[in-house]
Every structure is written in structure tokens, then in C-alpha cells.
């Protein structure tokens, strides 16, 4: 461990750190533009100059490795003068348009020029001006402001895995652009906006909407996919203006997907703000008293066995908990289901539906096998981790089924279940590789769980891994990639009905039209032929569920309530209220609690706090926030007992920008989808 002196203070640091990192550890802040913790080192902005003993010139601290015996000074006159000169040169070509620049208030250049900027410019020459570049519907460019830090290029190449941004020309005329100004085709593209230290790349949908100091910030959890990215929601009054990533090294690091970031304009559109009742085939605006009364009458006149409840993709734990209680206690019904299609589920153990290796664990993996999944679309942030792991360790990645374009090279080893049979029996070359590897990572996607061979694949893969000791307390290589924010929580709380004979009892009954009363708790993706069922839809957006409903009970969206979510690793996280529900809409638990009161079958929930406490107590897994289970060894089953089913494995392409009601209401998501489709039609290949 090298020891060095920073500003007369001796510190001991880890091997391989840069001088900049060492200075930070010693408590000296270094200004920088091009350096970023998560990207490779470029060393081209020269803002991080520090003085080193025995060096005639100041050194770029970000690009110098800290070594034994260095004597660094960061606060001398020489350093200040060097930085001032660098800043003066950066500002020589930077326009003075801060008043009309969206970066104003959170601009690195603006902030740092407060300390290092000169009060007047000595340059009388003309400033350079650069044409705006098109980078897609999310990124607004003003390339005159660019200071050539190349963070965006490095992000696209290293993290997003799409080599589409580059620097053309040279010297003063260097320009950042995508190849022939095509839209950036990545699910993580908008992260370059956060990375840009100046206002060259700003957010297009958020252009001229607000200034950062006018916004109220709330740190919360994303629900667009099951990853549970940590986000910061910025609101202006009721309106959610923008969503930014919040750093969580265990989940999303510093990135969020474009859907997470830009579906927020969907929170303003298509909102249900009043209860509706269907009269003569038309939905008529109503009020809470009438709507609840109608619901209660229907419940009273229907046999409990004919009532079913379905849970949507974005529902929080509290709502699900009270919904289950409401069904079991107030309605005496157990017909609950969170799956929207026939997806195989084995709830015997908790590891059966989790991403057990954890997102952080991906970086340790030495082999990855994707079975019927396209992580790029199903969990973009998780995909970025796989890419990181690939870049770091050059691991081999195999896929069963064709996932299409991913951001790292992979090898397709088959398209049907016979490959899985070969692997399990040991006759496939990948089989041996899995056995020999220390930390393999097997990811099973929903496309598989939806297929006929789901049970076979699920059980035999798990069995194979157990047999070879790949599921143990130190490393669990068995992973299920869930796509929906509510699903893991629903499985934890038991919002499904599985009998020995029938894995999909409620769904089968639904398709046979055996229910008379259907309660949709934010469930929009359910596909069935409606006959004479009475449908109650409780949710935030006027989408598929609301269009078939007979009564609509408006409720809050994910930014408008406190609530717990469990992500695909089984990590419980709390989302906080950033805004409030529009119009007359209420939080889900309140609505359900009300109905139970009017039914005279009150649940013993006093208030939200009481509900939260009871929820946390109900499941000892939830006693600690951000808790991840380390399950014990799983027991082996006899392989011969699992019947082999031969079927083709196809990976269902999901409509990435349109997966839930909030995205579907979002104008930005529609634009992204259009651009992506046009891309496919015209093609980028020459």
C-alpha cells in the first residue's frame, strides 16, 4: 500500500489508484471535466492539474497513478494559476449563453468558473461555432457548448456497448457526433445527458421546462422494470418534470434506462382522476360514493368463488398485502393472480423466482448462459452489468434461443429444449464448462417460463446446478429474470393460486369465463375474452384495463405514494411520495380499506403507518431494508421424474418502449418507438 503526502498530510492508499482519487481520499477536492469514476481515463481536459514535488510542470492528476513517496500539493498558487489558464482556454470557445442554457444551475463549467474563471476574456478572436447534431428524440444538442471531454464517447463505447458516438475532425474543429447523425440506438442513451459536464447534450423532452433550483427532489425507486433502479424524481408542484438516476452501486450504479427516465411524461397524460361507472356501454363520470356503493352491491350479490383479483405490474407491496387480506378476510376468496399469462411458477423456495447471483454478482461471474432471455430489453441496467463483466473479465457468454442484438458478443448454442437435455446429460461442451467454472451465471427468461417446456427446463436446470454444487451459500448460479416491478413482491406475499394439478388455476378459470366479478388492481396486460363479467378496474391510467371496466376507481401512480417494492434480486426498497394523486384519485390501500369498511368487514388497518408495520412484520424477509437472502443448499430431485418435452425456444421480443400503462401514455416513449421502427425499416446497413 503506497504512502504519499497530499497537502502535507500523509495518507495510505490502495494500490493502483490515481493521484486524483488519492487527493479525494485526503479530502482535497480536484476540479475535473473529462474524468469520471465509471469511465476510462482520457486526461484531455487538463482541469485536474496538481503540483508534484520534483516535477517542473503540474501533472494531470486523473491520468497519473499514485505511487510511493509522492508529494502532492493541490492548493498552491502555481496550481491555481495553471487551472485558471486551462479554464480560460476552455472558455475561449465556450458561448456565453448560460441564461438560455438548460444546464444552468447544474453545470460543471459554470460552477468551476466561479472559482477558476477570469472575470473578463482576453480573447478577441471569433468564437468557434458548431452545427447542432441530431442524436435522437431524447438528446438535445448544442455542440458549440461542447468542451471535448469525450465522456459521451466513452460512455457509448464502454458502458452502453454501442460504438455510435465519435469525434470527427481534429484540433479546434473537433466535433462530437453520431455516425452521420443517426439516432443513438441504445436503451441507456440518455445517460450521456447526465455525463455531459456542460450544456452540449441536454434533455430534449425537458428542454426549457424548469431550472434545477425550482424543483423539489425526491429520492425513490423506479418501477419500469424489475431491477428497481434508484432514481431521483424532480417535481414542480404536482408535475413530475424529470427523473434522474441516484447512485446505488449495488443496483444501477450511476445509470438508468431511457424508459425509466422519460416515461415520466406519461404520468401527466391519460390519468384517471374521477371514478367512472359504465352506463349503457359508456363510461360516465361519477363520484366515490356511487362507485363504491356499486362495487359493494356487486360483491354482496356474487359468490366468493366467482370473484377473482388480478394484480398489475406496477403495484407496491402495501397494496398487494392489503388486497390479499381484503380478498381472504372480507371476500372469503382466494382467487388471486399476479401473472398476466400462463407463466410457470414454482414457489416452493424463494430462490425459485429470484435473480440469486445478485446484480453485483454478475461482475464476479466467469461464464454466462442466457436461456430464452434478451436482457437488453428486459432489464437494460442489468444488461449493462453483463457488458461490464464482459469488458472486465472477457467472459464467455452463451445463449439458448436468439435474443437479437445485444451489447456484447455471445454464442448461440441452440434453439430448442434438446440442447438443455444435452447440457444436463453432460454431452454438450457447455455442460463441462459450467461444471468447471467457479461462478457460472445461468439466466432464465420469461420467454422460457411462458413456454410448454417451462417446468422441464426450470426443474432440470435447477437440478443440474444443485447436483454440481453451483447453488450454495457462497454462489447461487440459478437466476430468473423477472420483467415486472410487482412480481417478486407478489410471489413473496403469495398472490397466486397454485394447486398440485394446475399451475394456472385462476387464469384457466378466467379463460373459461367462470368468474362473475373481476377486480383488476392496476392490471392492464391481462388478455381474455370478456363475456358477462363485471369488471372493477383500480389504477392510475386509462389504458387497456380501464377500457374494459364497468367501474373505475382512480388511484395513485408510483411517484404519488410511499410504497415498498422488491426487485428481481429480492431486495426490498422503499419508494417515496414525490407528487400527489391528481383529482379525486386516492392511494390503493385507502380505496380497498374503504370498500372493506363499507362491506362491514373491516380490516384491522388504522393508517398507512400501521399497514407498513404489519406488512414488514408479515414476512421476516422484510425486516431489514435492502436485504438479500442467502438461501441454503437446495435439495436435489430425481431427474428421471421430470418428463422431457421437446419444443422450440423462441425469445419473445418485448415492445421495449410500451411495456406498461405509464409508458403507453408517454409521448416521449411513442417518439422513441417511432424512431426505432423507422430505423428498422430504412436500415442502417449500407
Amino acid at each position: 500500500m503506497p504512502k504519499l503526502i497530499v497537502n502535507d498530510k500523509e495518507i495510505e492508499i490502495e494500490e493502483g489508484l490515481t493521484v486524483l482519487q488519492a487527493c479525494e481520499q485526503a479530502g482535497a477536492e480536484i476540479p475535473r471535466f473529462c474524468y469520471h469514476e465509471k469511465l476510462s481515463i482520457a486526461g484531455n481536459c487538463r482541469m485536474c492539474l496538481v503540483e508534484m514535488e520534483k516535477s517542473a510542470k503540474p501533472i494531470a492528476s486523473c491520468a497519473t497513478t499514485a505511487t510511493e513517496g509522492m508529494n502532492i500539493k493541490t492548493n498552491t498558487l502555481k496550481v491555481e494559476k495553471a487551472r485558471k489558464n486551462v479554464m480560460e482556454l476552455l472558455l475561449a470557445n465556450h458561448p456565453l449563453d448560460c441564461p438560455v442554457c438548460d444546464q444552468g444551475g447544474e453545470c460543471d463549467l459554470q460552477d468551476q468558473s466561479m472559482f477558476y474563471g477570469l472575470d473578463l476574456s482576453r480573447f478577441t478572436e471569433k468564437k468557434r461555432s458548431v452545427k447542432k447534431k441530431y442524436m435522437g428524440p431524447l438528446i438535445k444538442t448544442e455542440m458549440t457548448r461542447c468542451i471535448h471531454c469525450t465522456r459521451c464517447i466513452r460512455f457509448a463505447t464502454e458502458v452502453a456497448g454501442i460504438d455510435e458516438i465519435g469525434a470527427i475532425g481534429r484540433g479546434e474543429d473537433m466535433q462530437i457526433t453520431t455516425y452521420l447523425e443517426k439516432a443513438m440506438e441504445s436503451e441507456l442513451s440518455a445517460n450521456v445527458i447526465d455525463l455531459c459536464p456542460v450544456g452540449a447534450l441536454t434533455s430534449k423532452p425537458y428542454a426549457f421546462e424548469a431550472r434545477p433550483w425550482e424543483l423539489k427532489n425526491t429520492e425513490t425507486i423506479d418501477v419500469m422494470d424489475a431491477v428497481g433502479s434508484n432514481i431521483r424524481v424532480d417535481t414542480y408542484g404536482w408535475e413530475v418534470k424529470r427523473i434522474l438516476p441516484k447512485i446505488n452501486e449495488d443496483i444501477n450504479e450511476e445509470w438508468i434506462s431511457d424508459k425509466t427516465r422519460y416515461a415520466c411524461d406519461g404520468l401527466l397524460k391519460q390519468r384517471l382522476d374521477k371514478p367512472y361507472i359504465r352506463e349503457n356501454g359508456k363510461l360516465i363520470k361519477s363520484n366515490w360514493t356511487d362507485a363504491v356503493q356499486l362495487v359493494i352491491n356487486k360483491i354482496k350479490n356474487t359468490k366468493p368463488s366467482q370473484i377473482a383479483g388480478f394484480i398489475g405490474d406496477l403495484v407496491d407491496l402495501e397494496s398487494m398485502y392489503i388486497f390479499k387480506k381484503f380478498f381472504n378476510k372480507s371476500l372469503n376468496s382466494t382467487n388471486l393472480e399476479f401473472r398476466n399469462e400462463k407463466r410457470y411458477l414454482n414457489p416452493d423456495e424463494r430462490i425459485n423466482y429470484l435473480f440469486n447471483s445478485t446484480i453485483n454478482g454478475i461482475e464476479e461471474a466467469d461464464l454466462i448462459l442466457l436461456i430464452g432471455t434478451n436482457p437488453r430489453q428486459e432489464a437494460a441496467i442489468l444488461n449493462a452489468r453483463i457488458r461490464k463483466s464482459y469488458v472486465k473479465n472477457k467472459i464467455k457468454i452463451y445463449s439458448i434461443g436468439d435474443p437479437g442484438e445485444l451489447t456484447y458478443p455471445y454464442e448461440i448454442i441452440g434453439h430448442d429444449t434438446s440442447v438443455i437435455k444435452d447440457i444436463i446429460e453432460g454431452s454438450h461442451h457447455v455442460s463441462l464448462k459450467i461444471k468447471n467454472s467457479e461462478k457460472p451465471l445461468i439466466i432464465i427468461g420469461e420467454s422460457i417460463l411462458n413456454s410448454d417446456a417451462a417446468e422441464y427446463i426450470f426443474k432440470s436446470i435447477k437440478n443440474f446446478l444443485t447436483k454440481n454444487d453451483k447453488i450454495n451459500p457462497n454462489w447461487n448460479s440459478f437466476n430468473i429474470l423477472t420483467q415486472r416491478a410487482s412480481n417478486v413482491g407478489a410471489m413473496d406475499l403469495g398472490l397466486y393460486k397454485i394447486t398440485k394439478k394446475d399451475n394456472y388455476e385462476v387464469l384457466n378459470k378466467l379463460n373459461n369465463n367462470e368468474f362473475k366479478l373481476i377486480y383488476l388492481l392496476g392490471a392492464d396486460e391481462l388478455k381474455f375474452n370478456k363475456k358477462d363479467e363485471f369488471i372493477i378496474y383500480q389504477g392510475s391510467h386509462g389504458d387497456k384495463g380501464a377500457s374494459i371496466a364497468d367501474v373505475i376507481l382512480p388511484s395513485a401512480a408510483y411517484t404519488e405514494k410511499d410504497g415498498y417494492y422488491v426487485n428481481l434480486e429480492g431486495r426490498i426498497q422503499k419508494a417515496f411520495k414525490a407528487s400527489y394523486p391528481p383529482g379525486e384519485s386516492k392511494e390503493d390501500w385507502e380505496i380497498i380499506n374503504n370498500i372493506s369498511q363499507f362491506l362491514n368487514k373491516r380490516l384491522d388497518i388504522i393508517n398507512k403507518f400501521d399497514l407498513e408495520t404489519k406488512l414488514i412484520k408479515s414476512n421476516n424477509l422484510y425486516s431489514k431494508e435492502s436485504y438479500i437472502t442467502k438461501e441454503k443448499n437446495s435439495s436435489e430431485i430425481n431427474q428421471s421424474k421430470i418428463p422431457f418435452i421437446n419444443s422450440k425456444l423462441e425469445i419473445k421480443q418485448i415492445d421495449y418502449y410500451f411495456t406498461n400503462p405509464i409508458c403507453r401514455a408517454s409521448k416521449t416513449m411513442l417518439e422513441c418507438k417511432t424512431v426505432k421502427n423507422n430505423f428498422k425499416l430504412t436500415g442502417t446497413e449500407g
Partner: protein
Amino acid sequence: MSIKKISKEQPEFFKFSEENLNKAKKIISKYPTEKQASAVMPLLYLVQGQNENWIPLVAMKYIAKFLNIPYIRVYEVATFYSMFNLSPVGKYFVQVCTTTPCMIRGAYKIVDVCKEKICENQKELSKDNIASWTEVECLGACVNAPMMQINDDYFEDLDKEKTEEIIEMILNDKQPKPGSYRNRKSAEPENKRTTLLNIKNA
């Protein structure tokens, strides 16, 4: 130097000729496996040789696929180096050096001749598409300043009249004689040697 303009008229198709394909393969074989990307510059130069001294976009894509690297990486290199032309140039491509030594010795007189005889603007084709001219940075022949380069040859020790002569010849599709136009032997002094007299073969 401003950023290069990319021609609006682009060919639809590009492919290496048989001869160039072999050359390209030979060039790539000089680099370690998985480092073929390093061959991008010689390959771009090959393209330029095959395609009338300029590189169309399809050729950049062709090379990107040839070397298995992203398009933008080829595009970056092609826009960086001034010796890669991204729009058509004349059969006779005149590059006039205007860096300090040449400038002091009257490079702008040559520029004026080019403007008058070839085309008002640099990097544009003359009327009959036979020639085009551009200002460039130092070509490393300062001793023989002012000078210009036409295709692969240097024309040195120029003045206004001699430049006019040369340009007139190329406009009539005749190959002028390269080298010094004041009868100097490469970079030697014009009359008698005044230094290094005691060395015979200096």
C-alpha cells in the same frame, strides 16, 4: 483547417479490386490477430487510390465491415487526416503549402493563381472537373519554398509565372515536370556551395 465537407453525391457501391483486395489482406496480416483495426489508415489510402483520389461513405462502411469495427471509428480517422479526401477532387489535385516559410516566400501568389485559373474556392472542382486545389499545412519542403504538390509530385522554387505555366499545363491535361523550377538539385544552394566545403560528397 475546417471540418471536411462530405460530398453530397455519393456512389452507391464500393468494392476493392482484385489487386487491392490482395494488398489489403497483406496489410492486415502485418498486424496481430484481433488488432486488424490498426490497418484502417493504409486501407483508406488504398480506397483513395482506387476511387479517383477520394473516399466515399460506402467505402468507409466497406472498410468498417472488412475490419469488423464500428462505422464511426473509420469515419473519425477519415475526417481527422487531411490526406484523406471525402469529396471528389480533380484529376490533378493541387495542394499549395501556405505555412510560414512558404508564406514568407510568396505562397499566396500561388494561391492567387490557383484561384484565378482553377476555381475561386478551394476544394471545389474546376469547370471541366480536371483540377482542384487546396491550401495545406507544411509539406516539409521549406528549403525550396514556395512550393506545391500535384498528386504525388512536388513542384518547388515557384513564382507567379512558373505556377501559371504549370497550372496551364495541367488544365490541358499535360504532366508538368516535377522538382525545382530554379534548376536546383534537390535542396542544394542555387549557385555555389558556401558551406561544408571540406566534405567532398556533402
